[in-house]
C-alpha cells in the first residue's frame, strides 16, 4: 500500500507536467484544429530561456519562469503568424506537415546553436529536500520539488480557468473555437484571438519546460520530443480540444506511466503509453470527456 501511494505521488508530479503541456496542445487544437507538433520544442526553448536567465542573468527561479513564459509566448505567436496563418484555409494536412517541419527546425536549430551538451540548472536553483508525509498512518516521502511542480501546475490551471471563463479574451477564444465566422460577426478579431491562444499555450509549455529541466536535472535541445508526444497522448485521452480533458489526461497518464514503470518495467513504459493511445483512438476517439455533439437544425 505504501508503495502504491508513493507511486501515486510520483505519478501526480510527472502528470502535472504532462497536463501543462497538454493544455497548450488542446487550446491550439480547439481554436484552429491543428496538432501543433512544434509545441514540445517550444517547451525546450522555454527551458533554455529559463536556464540562461538563472545562469547568466543570475535571476531567481521565479523571474526565470516569467522571462521564459514571455519568450516562449513570443516564439509561439511568431510561429503561428509565419508558418500556420498562411495555411489557415489550406487542407489541414498541409498545416500538420508544416507543424512537423517547424518542430524539426526548432530541434535542429537548437542543436546547431546550443550544441549537443547536456546542461542542468545549477544546484540550489530551488531547495530540494525530502519531506516525510504521513497518510492514514502510512509513511511516504515527497520532495519539495514534487510539491512545487504540483503547486505551480494547480495555480496555472486556476489562472487558465479564470481567463477562459471570466475574461473577454477567454470568451473570444471560446467563440472562435466554436464558430469562427460567427465570432467575426460579434466583432471579435479572430487573428488576434488565435495569437493570444498560441501565446498562452506557449507560456504553459515554458513553465513545463523549466519544471522538466528541474525534475530530470537535464536540459538539451531534444528534450521536448518525448514529453511533447506524451502530452499529446494525454490530450487525446482526455479529449482533444477540451481543457478539463487535458488536465485529466495529463494527471491520468502520469500516474499510469509511473505505475507501469513501478510494477512492471520501465522499459515497457513508453510502448504501453503509445498502445494506450491506439486503444483510445480505436475505442473512444473523442476521449474520456469528449462526446459527439449533434447539431440542431
Amino acid at each position, binding site marked *: 500500500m505504501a508503495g502504491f501511494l508513493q507511486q501515486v505521488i510520483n505519478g501526480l508530479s510527472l502528470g502535472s507536467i504532462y497536463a501543462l503541456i497538454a493544455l497548450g496542445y488542446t487550446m491550439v487544437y480547439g481554436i484552429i484544429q491543428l496538432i501543433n507538433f512544434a509545441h514540445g520544442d517550444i517547451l525546450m526553448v522555454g527551458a533554455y530561456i529559463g536556464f540562461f536567465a538563472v545562469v547568466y542573468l543570475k535571476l531567481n527561479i521565479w523571474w526565470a519562469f516569467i522571462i521564459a513564459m514571455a519568450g516562449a509566448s513570443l516564439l509561439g505567436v511568431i510561429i503561428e503568424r509565419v508558418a500556420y496563418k498562411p495555411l489557415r484555409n489550406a487542407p489541414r494536412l498541409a498545416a500538420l506537415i508544416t507543424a512537423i517541419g517547424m518542430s524539426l527546425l526548432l530541434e535542429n536549430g537548437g542543436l546547431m546553436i546550443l550544441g549537443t551538451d547536456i546542461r542542468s540548472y545549477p544546484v540550489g536553483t530551488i531547495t530540494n529536500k525530502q519531506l516525510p508525509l504521513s497518510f492514514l498512518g502510512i509513511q511516504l516521502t515527497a520532495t519539495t520539488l514534487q510539491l512545487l511542480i504540483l503547486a505551480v501546475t494547480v495555480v496555472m490551471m486556476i489562472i487558465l480557468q479564470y481567463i477562459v471563463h471570466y475574461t473577454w479574451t477567454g470568451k473570444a477564444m471560446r467563440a472562435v473555437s466554436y464558430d469562427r465566422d460567427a465570432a467575426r460577426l*460579434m466583432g471579435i478579431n479572430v487573428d488576434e484571438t488565435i495569437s493570444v491562444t498560441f501565446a498562452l499555450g506557449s507560456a504553459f509549455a515554458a513553465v513545463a519546460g523549466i519544471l522538466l529541466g528541474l525534475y530530470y536535472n537535464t536540459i538539451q535541445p531534444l528534450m521536448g520530443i518525448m514529453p511533447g508526444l506524451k502530452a499529446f497522448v494525454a490530450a487525446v485521452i482526455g479529449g482533444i480540444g477540451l481543457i478539463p480533458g487535458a488536465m485529466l489526461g495529463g494527471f491520468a497518464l502520469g500516474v499510469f506511466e509511473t505505475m507501469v514503470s513501478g510494477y512492471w518495467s520501465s522499459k515497457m513504459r513508453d510502448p504501453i503509453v503509445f498502445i494506450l493511445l491506439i486503444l483510445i483512438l480505436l475505442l473512444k476517439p473523442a476521449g474520456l470527456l469528449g462526446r459527439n455533439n449533434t447539431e440542431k437544425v
Partner: protein
Amino acid sequence: MLLLKVENLNVYYGAIHALKGITLEVNEGEIVTLIGANGAGKSTTLKTISGLLRPQSGTITYNGEVINGLPAQAIVKKGISHVPEGRRIFPNLTVMENLELGAYLHRSREGMKKSIQEVFRRFPRLRERQKQMAGTLSGGEQQMLAIGRALMSRPKLLLLDEPSMGLAPILVQEIFNIIKEINEQGTTILLVEQNANMALSVAHRGYVLETGRITLTGSAAELISSEDVKKAYLGG
C-alpha cells in the same frame, strides 16, 4: 436618407460567379427584403455586406463611407449587425454569454446591462433560460437568441438571413412581429427570405434575386401583386 448602397457587386466562390453585378439601396428606417430561390445569392449578398466575404469588384457604401474590404469586426463597429443563416449561436456557451459576446465591442458595464435588459424585455423566454447552454434551446428560442445577440451591439442596420428557417408557422409569425417591432423602434432592416409571402408582408420594398442577378424590384405591394413573383415564389 440613404443608409446602404450596394453598387455593381461581383462575388466569386473560387470559379463560381455567385453575384453578377448586384445593385441595391436601403434607406434609413426601411425594411427591405431580398427574395429568391435557393442559391440565388441572397446569403452571399449579406455575407459580403458584413465583411465575411470579399467582393471581386463593386462598392458597398454605408452612411456615406465605402466599407467593402474592411474586416468583419470593423463593419460591426460601424453599426451593421448580421444574424447569419442557421442562427450560428454558440451552443456550448450559456444564453447570457452569447448575449455578452454580442456586445463584444461595447463592453461598458452599464451599457451592457441596459442592452441585456432590453433583449430580455423583447424575448422574455431568454431571461428564463439565461443560464442554460444555448445549444439546449428550441429552434425558435435559438432564433430569438441570434436576433437578441445581434441587437446587443445596438446596430443601425440589421441584416437578417432566413429568420423563418425551420420554424413552426406560429413561431414564424411571432418572429416577424418582432422584426416589425424592431424596425418601428428605429432599426433599419435588410431581410433575406425564402418565405416571400411573409417577407413581403412586413417589408416596405423588395428585390427579387435570380442566379446572382436582380431581376425585379419594387414596393412590397407591387411585388406581391406581380404575376412573375406570384408564379415563382408565392405558389400562385
